[in-house]
């Protein structure tokens, strides 16, 4: 592993300028826009076309502010903060101008909030409520354009479009596949594409997120839920080893959609369509809901007080082979590793591979070949990456299947172990010979951390309740270890993490508070 000590020499500080925004003094690097300076002063200047991940367009004119001694109102996204500037956001002149912008955006808008998916999370609604006109002065027919299916997951509701061009800029600058354009000009302008070329780029779904209004919508989540019905849980996409930060949006304990969450160090503001649309497995109903213990020919429903001791009895004094899923959290894998260490034996994991799909406009961001979230964590914690899930399983071992995919395991391989303990979310047919089955939460039903391919440890939080009697995975493994007398039981994921940080040098010095929302890179860097 390469040593990556944090640089100890001070980086040259950029020249700072001091200005006042809405009476609040703020100091920002020279060259920063007034809009960004406003954010740092705690003032959100209304805007549409500006996006921190895209080039500056300056066309919506929504961010107009009054700058003392300047002749005209300034578009704050495109005006540099300057020494001694005094900026007013809420003076009558600025408010009138922005109200004028909103009025003009609304006159030809269909105002169909009752049937628009964006309702409740729409910036046109938000700023109109805040400072828009109460009535329409339009006495003429509205302009109407039909809906267009752009392909992929993207539906374009032309009439709602405010022509901010965020989508065009995203595809051009970040995806670097210029498949969207502005067609025609003036009030006939619409977002367009070339006939026959669909929006199937692996990252195209991000245009839906960057669209401030309900013009670009996800076909996958069309009409499924109202935005205010949704709960949002910050999480990590489990689709590959990139570890894009996401939000899992649920309603009534069902995942409705995934959306990216900003992280400057990992995915900026974006996530790929493959990860975005792969959430239905989180909602699957064919889950193990109660602990199961073998009684003769069949597995019988049981409860934790019986199943845990039964699992311990199974393992006591035996060599173990742990087939782990690379989508288990660091916490759970750590406890499984302790089981391996105490019992003697080994642990392994396999990863499904798929084609990469980089996002060229962002440094080091790609859909990765390794289609699992925590292969790096499994590696650090001592699990061996194998081509086949049961490589290394010896005759007589107790096989612990920790939610691993054993669909490729052969009958002969599955006949090798002396006993099978399943700690998992589902019970496939070929594992019905198990002796004990302990139901666990999937990653969206518990808290934990993943380690991405760059060694960044990132937290994910619980988005929905686990079904039936299923418990967090780290809790279950901890109980088994405790029952064996080989460890303690844990009731908080943070406690497991702290214990791990105390024992595994890669995580030394880390804790949940320190990880926060951005994560930290393991000591010694990624392997």
């Amino acid at each position: 592993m390469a040593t990556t000590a944090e640089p100890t020499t001070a980086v040259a500080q950029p020249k700072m300028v001091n200005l006042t925004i809405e009476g609040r003094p703020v100091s920002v690097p020279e060259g920063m826009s007034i809009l960004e300076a406003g954010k740092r002063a705690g003032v959100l200047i209304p805007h549409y076309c500006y996006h921190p991940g895209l080039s500056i367009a300056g066309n919506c004119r929504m961010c107009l502010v009054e700058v003392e001694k300047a002749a005209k109102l300034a578009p704050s996204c495109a005006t540099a903060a300057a020494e001694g500037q005094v900026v007013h956001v809420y003076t009558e002149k600025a408010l009138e101008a922005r109200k004028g912008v909103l009025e003009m955006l609304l006159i030809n808008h269909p105002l169909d909030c009752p049937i628009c998916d964006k309702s409740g999370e729409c910036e046109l609604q938000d700023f109109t409520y805040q400072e828009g006109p109460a009535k329409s002065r339009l006495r003429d027919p509205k302009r109407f354009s039909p809906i267009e299916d752009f392909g992929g997951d993207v539906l374009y509701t032309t009439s709602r479009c405010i022509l901010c061009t965020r989508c065009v800029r995203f595809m051009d600058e970040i995806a670097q596949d210029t498949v969207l354009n502005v067609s025609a000009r003036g009030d006939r302008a619409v977002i367009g594409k070339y006939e026959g070329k669909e929006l199937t780029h692996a990252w195209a779904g991000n245009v839906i997120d960057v669209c401030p209004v309900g013009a670009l919508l996800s076909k996958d989540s069309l009409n499924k839920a109202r935005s205010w019905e949704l709960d949002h849980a910050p999480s990590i996409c489990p689709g590959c080893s990139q570890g894009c930060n996401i939000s899992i949006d649920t309603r009534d304990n069902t995942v409705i959609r995934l959306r990216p969450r900003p992280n400057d160090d990992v995915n900026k503001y974006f996530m790929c369509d493959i990860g975005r649309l792969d959430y239905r497995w989180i909602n699957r109903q064919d889950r193990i809901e109660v602990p199961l213990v073998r009684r003769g020919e069949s597995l019988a429903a049981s409860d934790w007080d019986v199943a845990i001791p039964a699992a311990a009895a199974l393992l006591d004094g035996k060599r173990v082979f742990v087939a782990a899923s690379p989508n288990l959290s660091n916490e759970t894998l750590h406890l499984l590793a302790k089981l391996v260490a105490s019992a003697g034996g080994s642990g392994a994991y396999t990863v499904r591979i798929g084609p990469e799909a980089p996002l060229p406009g962002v440094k080091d961001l790609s859909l990765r070949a390794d289609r699992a979230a925590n292969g790096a964590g499994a590696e650090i914690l001592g699990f061996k990456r194998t081509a086949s899930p049961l490589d290394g399983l010896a005759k007589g071992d107790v096989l612990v299947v920790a939610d691993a995919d054993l669909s490729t395991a052969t009958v002969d391989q599955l006949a090798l172990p002396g006993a099978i303990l399943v700690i998992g979310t589902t019970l496939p047919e070929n594992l019905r010979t198990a002796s004990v089955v302990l139901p666990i939460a999937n990653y969206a039903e518990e808290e934990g951390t993943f380690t991405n391919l760059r060694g960044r440890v990132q937290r994910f939080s619980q988005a929905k309740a686990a079904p039936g009697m299923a418990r967090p995975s780290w809790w279950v493994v901890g109980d088994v270890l405790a029952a064996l007398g080989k460890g303690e039981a844990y009731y908080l994921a943070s406690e497991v993490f702290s214990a791990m940080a105390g024992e595994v040098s890669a995580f030394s010095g880390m804790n949940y508070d320190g990880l926060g929302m951005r994560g930290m890179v393991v000591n010694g860097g990624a392997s």
Partner: protein
Amino acid sequence: MGYPQPSHERETPVLSKYFGDRDATSLDGWRKRGGYEGLRKALSMTPAEIVDIVKTSGLRGRGGAGFPTGIKWSFMKPGDGKPHYLCCNADESEPGTFKDREIMRWTPHALVEGCALGAYAIGAETAYVYIRGEFTEPLARMRQAVREAYDAGILGTNSMGTGKRIDVIIHKGAGAYICGEETAMMNSIEGRRGNPRIKPPFPAVSGVFAQPTTINNVETLAAVPHILVQGADWYKAMSLSSPKSTGSKLFSVCGNIARPGNYEVTLGFPFKDFLYDLCGGPLPGRTLKAVVPGGISVPIQTMEEAEASKMDYEGFIEQGSMLGSGGVIVFDDQQNMVKQIARAARFFAHESCGQCTQCREGTAWTTRIMERIRDGEGTHEDLDTLFSIADNMTATTICVLSDSCAVPVMSGIRKFRSEFEALIKKPKFHPVTAAVA
């Protein structure tokens, strides 16, 4: 001269001297008329010397903005190691203006010479001449003139034997008034949609292909060789009113006037004399009602204002309008001002690039309301709404097309309100809730 009219004795023919003279279009013909002496002289000077001469002359941009040309040229920093560009704005699309067309089709070499001189003065080796696609004849004449200039060694790697490189490239537009806006023109040359850019950065810092660029109008560049040959003081002395407005200017006269055409007069010339004497006044049996002195984007003048105006930058401002491009549109008593302002609004709505909210929606909304008033379906509230929209469209956008649309609307309603009110027959608009009672 007053082409296509006969020359008037009170004109000052400098640029228009050979309008109508077919022989002036060829290189030989141009040389016989003193052509390329200005360039020859300039190439023996340093760029800094040329810039000083142009500054002293007081020449101001003839496209409409009136920015002092010498000062604009001085923004181009010599020795910065970057390729400099000159862009000649031959996109002439401001309604009422047709002077650059005549310069190019009668005296194309005047512009070739002006471009070469201008390029040299700003340290550029390449000049793009952006000619609107509709100008078929000017394009043909300019292309021919450029070919002749290359063949004669005036353009190319060894301009007039001085070892200096000057390339002039003709670039044909494709139908967009907005490409006459300097930053939109640069985008168009780069092969993009003709969207204006946010300034800063200014063209002299980052222009076409992100390099230092100067954009000048056809008439401006055509004037420069004359200034080099006859001297800055000669040009500066040509001033009949405000000393800040020097030289001669081509005024394109059109509309309801006896003798439409281009006229070249010294700046500061009295507008009343110009309209009634040089241009012949109204058509028989009619009286003049309104004048737009500088292209449709400047405020409409009442005849009282027009007749009191001196034809220069300061003079028109004093009388409620602007010199602009010098496109003089004359309206007589038979015209319906409401209809014509509606048509002007429609022009702007058609030409808006669509970037800025206020312009994209405002020009179209203004047009709808104006046309509704024109058709007798307007209300008094509509007039208030028009003013409010115009106010929102002013000083709030990336470029001034938005402001330009607001100008004829506001000046029209203010100065010809009776014509609007005569068409308003509908009662006050009642919202639905009130109708229930």
